[in-house]
């Protein structure tokens, strides 16, 4: 059954189009999405794509003819199909509309015609065969042979460089609109990306007005972070518990420890290390929090390895401190500072980022009172740390000025229930408010 190919409506005001050239000879085989013809509207030359795979049976309107929108310009179908009885549609007999003074349009027009009238592509049989197997358009491949002949090796190289398959028209739109089509799943034959696939991407319909708009490919570290955060957020039901901690004693403790640790390590101990120490101490008391979920089992970890979220340019990494419960504050200060530096310098090894059993995300250096962190999978919980602020609070029924800090514990409700999580947070609060307990 022959299928009509009609003059497409390429713009809201388009009423007719002119056929610049047919890119496929009558009887030629085309694949869905292959360029079929070039159409000129009042402004530009556009390629129209074959909507199905088949043979160009008959051309109704030859190059140079002007046709109304939606009128039949050709028929496609199966090889050998009869073209008898396929009606020819009268075309508008008018001069070719003049190309306006728009330089790019003129240039495009010239290019289009030169390609259409240009030499046949020189390629070896082996190159043609390989290109057909991968449904490649040989026009996109640069030949290195004599007179530009495309050899098998050229096709192989092209294949190495272009893993994504996209129709020429879709590629042009994507390039114009600066769309990274590597992330788009094509719906064409063999997963080829077609124009429609781009249109379903919301950004396509946005008119690019600001050429200076910075556009960064969504890939690399950003993509990894995005994937892992989404996976955690969507697969682990999060519950966040929040508790206000009186850090007055910890502030005093730090003041006392500063010169001591500086003497040993040459480094200044920060609340971050005190928090890590207290968290490890509390995790040891609450082993049901120091767990993770595998596909089939819940793993209770024998070691306490705490991931420490570190902001780096353009992203976030979580290096891991090991056996935190066994280490003193001096050691922790040195380790936390050096791994933090390593992270910011981008020198972390994969090993440095593996094996955490719990994570601490500290935003205390910012004007953040508290927040609900997302669990760093495969951990079962994460501790979010806000800033320490002096506040008026009630102590022993009297107003007092105390250094207060908000802690939030997000946990995976699939494997941790509210009560044990609350118990952990309560224990942690207790240790931080009475830091001498860390001596035990």
């Amino acid at each position, binding site marked *: 059954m022959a299928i009509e190919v009609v003059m497409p409506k390429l713009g809201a005001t388009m009423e007719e189009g002119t056929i610049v050239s047919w890119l496929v000879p009558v009887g030629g085989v085309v694949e869905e999405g292959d360029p079929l013809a070039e159409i000129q509207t009042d402004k530009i030359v556009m390629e129209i794509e074959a909507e199905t795979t088949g043979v160009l049976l008959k051309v109704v309107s030859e190059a140079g003819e002007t046709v109304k929108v939606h009128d039949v310009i050709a028929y496609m179908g199966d090889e050998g199909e009869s073209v008898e009885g396929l009606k020819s549609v009268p075309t508008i007999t008018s001069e070719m509309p003049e190309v306006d003074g728009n330089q790019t349009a003129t240039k495009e027009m010239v290019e289009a015609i030169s390609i259409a009238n240009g030499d046949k592509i020189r390629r*070896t*049989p*082996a*190159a*043609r*065969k390989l290109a057909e197997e991968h449904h490649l358009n040989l026009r996109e491949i640069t030949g*290195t*042979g*004599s007179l530009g*002949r495309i*050899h*098998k*090796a050229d096709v192989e190289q092209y294949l190495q460089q272009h893993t994504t398959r996209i129709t020429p028209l879709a590629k042009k739109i994507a390039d114009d609109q600066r769309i990274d089509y590597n992330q788009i799943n094509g719906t064409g034959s063999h997963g080829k990306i077609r124009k429609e696939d781009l249109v379903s991407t919301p950004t396509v319909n946005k008119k690019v007005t600001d050429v200076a708009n910075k556009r960064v490919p969504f890939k690399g570290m950003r993509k990894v972070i995005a994937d892992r955060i989404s996976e955690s957020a969507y697969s682990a039901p999060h519950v966040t518990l929040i508790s206000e901690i009186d850090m007055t004693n910890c502030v005093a403790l730090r003041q006392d420890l500063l010169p001591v640790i500086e003497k040993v390590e040459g480094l200044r101990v920060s609340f971050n290390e005190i928090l890590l120490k207290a968290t490890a101490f509390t995790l040891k008391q609450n082993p049901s929090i120091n767990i993770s979920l595998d596909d089939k089992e819940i793993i209770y970890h024998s070691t306490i390895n705490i991931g420490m979220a570190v902001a780096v340019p353009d992203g976030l990494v979580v290096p891991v401190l090991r056996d935190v419960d066994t280490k003193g504050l001096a050691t922790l200060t040195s380790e936390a500072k050096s791994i933090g530096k390593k992270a910011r310098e981008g020198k972390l090894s994969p090993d440095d980022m593996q094996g955490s059993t719990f994570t601490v995300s500290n935003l205390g250096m910012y004007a953040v009172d508290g927040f609900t962190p997302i669990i760093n999978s495969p951990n079962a919980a994460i501790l979010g740390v806000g800033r320490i602020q002096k506040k008026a609070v009630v102590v022993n029924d009297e107003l007092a000025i105390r250094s207060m800090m908000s802690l939030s514990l997000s946990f995976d409700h699939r494997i941790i229930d509210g009560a044990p999580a609350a118990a952990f947070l309560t224990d942690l609060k207790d240790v931080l408010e009475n830091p001498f307990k860390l001596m035990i």
Partner: protein
Amino acid sequence: MREITYLEAIRESMSQEMRTDNDVFIMGEDIGIYGGAFGLTNGMIEEFGPERVRNTPISEAAISGCAVGAAMTGMRPILEIQFSDFVMIAMDNIVNQAAKMRYMFGGKAKVPVVIRLPGGSGAGFAAQHSQSLEAWMAHVPGLKVVQPSNAYDAKGLMKAAIKDDNPVLFYEHKLLYNVKGEVPEENYEIPLGQADIKREGTDITIVATAIMVNRALEAAEELEKEGIHVEVIDPRTLVPLDTETILQSVKKTSRVLVVYEAVKRGGYGAEIASMIAESDVFDYLDAPIRRLGGVATPIPYNPELEKAAVPQVNDIVQECRKLMNK
């Protein structure tokens, strides 16, 4: 294994067949006491006598007519044409009689004749004694054409040629006569129509005949140093032609060079190239099919010019490099 020359291998094969089959006999100019122009039949008259080693007048028309007649009556003659160039005098008997007899008599007559033809250039024999005109014969339906490139093949193919019930043109290359090779003493046969892979490779297939096989092998050694792995195929018989072996090789390497000594224009290499081009292997070609053949000139007497008239090792090397560089 024992090594003998190409010339000795052909003599040995004929002698072994003559010992086992009384219908086989040889004839030609000065092949008796003198042992033939190249000494190939030395000693055969002593063993088989003048009845079976027949000296003939200097008339290729007479020799060939006699041989074809003898073959039709049930004998299995092997006739030596002193230089393959002289076969033109015998052309009517070979092309108009021998090649067509079996067909025109509805299979009731057979013509089991072997015509030995020393051909090729390189020995300073000049224009009338140095040609390679095997393509003329390959063009005629009813004739088989054999072109051995080494002693082992020559012996086995000669046996198959003698046993064949059709006229076989057995082209021997003068320059190969003294080339030694390993040849078993026992009598063995190499079927006509069976090509041989003389060297395995992955980048280029060279299809070469006669002395060009040896030159192609030398060129392949040199190209190997440059990382170009050449496969060398010797069809051994032009008619019947083993297309399968050639096509399988081309499918593997995707490039072909056909090398032959005869004038490139209209030579048998063109047939091989065309056969490849119109086969299903076409899709595997990654370069044009190239031919390397002789220059369209009578073979010069001047040794330097004689060399220049036909492909040498270096020409093959250059051509392969061109093929690899597209």
